[in-house]
C-alpha cells in the first residue's frame, strides 16, 4: 500500500507525520482505556463463571464510561494530614512517563511515494531517535515516583507500605527487565526502536523471540514477567494489595485523582505491551510473507491486544505473590537467568561473527582522537 506524499500547505505528509502519530497514538491510548476496563471485567467474569457488567449499553460496553462520569462528578476530598503539593502532583507524575513513552513506539511502516516514483519507508512514530530503547528504560524507571510519592504524601500507614513495596519491587524487577531488553538490543543490533522492528522483518522465525534459540525465548519470558511487575499488575500488585493494605498507595485518593491512577495503570499496560511487541514479537511485521497484504498497524494492534489478553488471563489465574516470594523471584531467579541469557547471547554473537570483522577495533574518526598524542600535537598549534 503506497501512500502519495500529499502536500499540505507549506508542508508535505512526511513533515507532519510525527505530529499525526503523536495525536493518533495518544488519542488511541486514552480512548482505548475505557474499553480495556470493560474487556478486563468481562474476561474476568468469564473466567470466574459470573456475568460481569451487562447493564449499561449493549453488553455493558458503556459501563466504564459510566464509572468515569461518576468519578469525574464525585467530590474531590483532600484528607487534612496530607502533604498537599506532593499529594496532588503524584498522579500527574505517574501519568507523564506513561504517556511520554508513546513517543518512541513504532506502530507501522508507511510506504510513501516521495514523487518521481521514489518510494520510501517512513515509520509511523513520533520520534525516531537513536536511543529509543534507553529512553523507554529511563521513563519506566521514572514511573515509580508517582506511586512512591502518593504513598508517602497520603500520610497513611497502608499507603506508605504500598509506596515502600512499590519502590523495592520496581528497582528489583527493573534490573531483570533491563538485562532482557539488552539481550533484545544485542539480537537486533540497534537501540533504535524502528531499526529493532525492521530487523525482524520476514517470518515468525525472524522475530527476536525466535532468534538465538533458546536465548531469545528465555529473555522474552523474563521480559514478560518483569513487565507485569513493572506495571504493578496482579500477581505483582503488592503496592495496592486490597486484602492487606486497603487499597495501598491510592487509599486516600478519590474522584479524579483516583481516576488518573486507574487510567495510568491501563495506559502503561498498553504502552509496555507495545514495547514488548516491538522488541520481541516483530512489531508491525506480519508472521508470514503471505500475510503481508494486511497493513502493519493491524498486526501491531493485534499483538498488543493479545498481550492485554495475557495480562487479564494472568490476573485471573495466579494468586498474588507473598512479599518475600516476590523478592526471591526477582533476585534469585529472574536476574541470574536474564544475566546468563545476556552473556550467552553476547558470546554466541561474538563467536559467529566472521573473523575479518573480529580482526581489530573499528577505526574511530579523527574528531574523537583529541586525546591521542598525534592529535594533541596538531591541536597545540
Amino acid at each position, binding site marked *: 500500500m503506497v501512500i502519495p506524499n500529499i502536500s499540505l500547505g507549506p508542508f508535505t505528509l512526511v513533515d507532519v507525520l510525527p505530529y499525526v502519530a503523536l495525536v493518533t497514538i495518544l488519542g488511541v491510548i486514552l480512548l482505548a482505556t475505557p474499553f480495556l476496563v470493560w474487556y478486563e471485567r468481562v474476561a474476568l467474569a468469564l473466567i470466574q463463571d459470573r456475568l460481569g457488567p451487562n447493564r449499561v449499553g449493549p453488553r455493558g460496553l458503556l459501563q466504564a464510561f459510566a464509572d468515569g462520569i461518576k468519578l469525574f462528578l464525585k467530590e474531590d476530598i483532600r484528607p487534612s494530614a496530607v*502533604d498537599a503539593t*506532593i499529594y496532588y502532583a503524584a498522579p500527574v507524575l505517574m501519568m507523564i512517563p506513561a504517556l511520554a513513552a508513546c513517543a518512541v513506539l513504532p506502530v507501522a511502516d508507511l510506504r510513501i511515494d516521495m514523487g518521481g516514483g521514489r518510494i520510501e519507508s517512513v515509520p509511523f512514530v513520533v520520534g525516531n531517535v*537513536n*536511543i529509543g530503547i*534507553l*529512553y523507554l*528504560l*529511563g*521513563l*519506566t*524507571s*521514572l514511573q*515509580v*515516583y508517582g506511586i*512512591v*510519592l502518593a*504513598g*508517602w504524601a497520603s500520610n497513611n500507614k497502608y499507603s*506508605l507500605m504500598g*509506596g*515502600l513495596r512499590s*519502590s*523495592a519491587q*520496581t*528497582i528489583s524487577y*527493573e534490573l531483570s527487565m*533491563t538485562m532482557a531488553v539488552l539481550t533484545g538490543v544485542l539480537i537486533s543490533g540497534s*537501540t533504535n526502536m524502528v531499526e529493532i522492528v525492521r530487523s525482524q522483518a520476514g517470518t515468525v522465525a525472524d522475530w527476536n523471540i525466535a532468534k538465538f534459540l533458546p536465548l531469545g525465548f528465555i529473555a522474552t519470558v523474563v521480559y514478560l514477567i518483569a513487565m507485569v511487575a513493572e506495571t504493578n499488575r496482579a500477581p505483582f500488585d503488592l503496592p495496592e494489595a486490597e486484602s492487606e493494605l486497603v487499597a495501598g498507595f491510592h487509599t486516600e485518593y478519590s474522584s479524579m485523582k483516583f481516576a488518573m491512577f486507574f487510567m495510568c495503570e491501563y495506559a502503561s499496560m498498553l504502552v509496555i505491551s507495545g514495547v514488548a511487541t516491538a522488541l520481541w514479537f516483530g512489531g508491525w511485521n506480519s508472521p508470514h510473507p503471505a500475510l503481508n497484504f494486511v497493513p502493519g498497524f493491524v498486526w501491531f494492534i493485534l499483538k498488543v491486544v493479545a498481550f492485554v489478553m495475557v495480562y487479564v488471563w494472568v490476573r485471573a489465574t495466579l494468586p498474588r505473590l507473598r512479599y518475600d516470594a516476590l523478592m526471591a523471584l526477582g533476585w534469585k531467579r529472574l536476574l541470574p537467568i536474564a544475566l546468563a541469557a545476556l552473556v550467552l547471547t553476547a558470546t554466541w554473537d561474538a563467536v559467529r561473527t566472521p573473523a575479518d570483522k573480529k580482526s581489530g*577495533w*573499528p577505526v*574511530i574518526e*579523527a*574528531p*574523537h582522537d583529541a*586525546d*591521542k598524542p598525534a592529535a594533541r600535537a596538531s591541536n597545540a598549534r
Partner: protein
Amino acid sequence: MQGNSIGFWILAALCIFAAVQVVANRNPVRSALALVGVMCCLSVFYFAQGAEFVGAVQLIVYAGAIMVLFLFVIMLLNLGAPNPMMDRVGLSKPVALLASAALLGSLALAGALKMAPDRVGKSPVSGTVQQIGYALFDPGRPWLFAFELTSVLLLVGVVGAVVLAQRRSD
C-alpha cells in the same frame, strides 16, 4: 540556535532553583524530589550537547535507581517529617556559606580565566552508544582498565551492602 539558548536559560534557572530547594527544604522527601528535578534538567543538558548515552544513563541510573533508593531509605526510617533537631543552626552555617561563596568565586574566576573562547565549528563529538562502546573497549585507551576496575568496585559494593544489611545475631 536562539531557541537553544532560550531553552538553556530556562532550564538553567529551573536547575538552580531545584538545587537550592535540595539544600533549603527541611523535608528530606522534598529535597530528594528537587534533586530528581536537577538530574532531569542535567539529562536534558547532556542530550543538548550530543551526549545521548550519558543523558539516558543519567535518567536510568541517577533518577531511576539512586534516587528511588534514597526515597526508599527515607520512607523506611520514617524520616519524612521535617525534624527541627536536624536543622538547628550552629556556627557551621555561616562558615559553610562563606566557604561555599569563596569556592564559587574561585571556580567562576578559574573558569573565566582559563576558558579559551569556544572553538566554534570544531567537528562535534557525538556520544552515541556506538561511539561510547568503541572508546570504552578500545585497548589503546585508558578506559578499558578503568572499566574492569569498576566491575570490581561494583562487586565490592554488592558484597558490602549485603554484609551491612545482615542483622547481627548476637
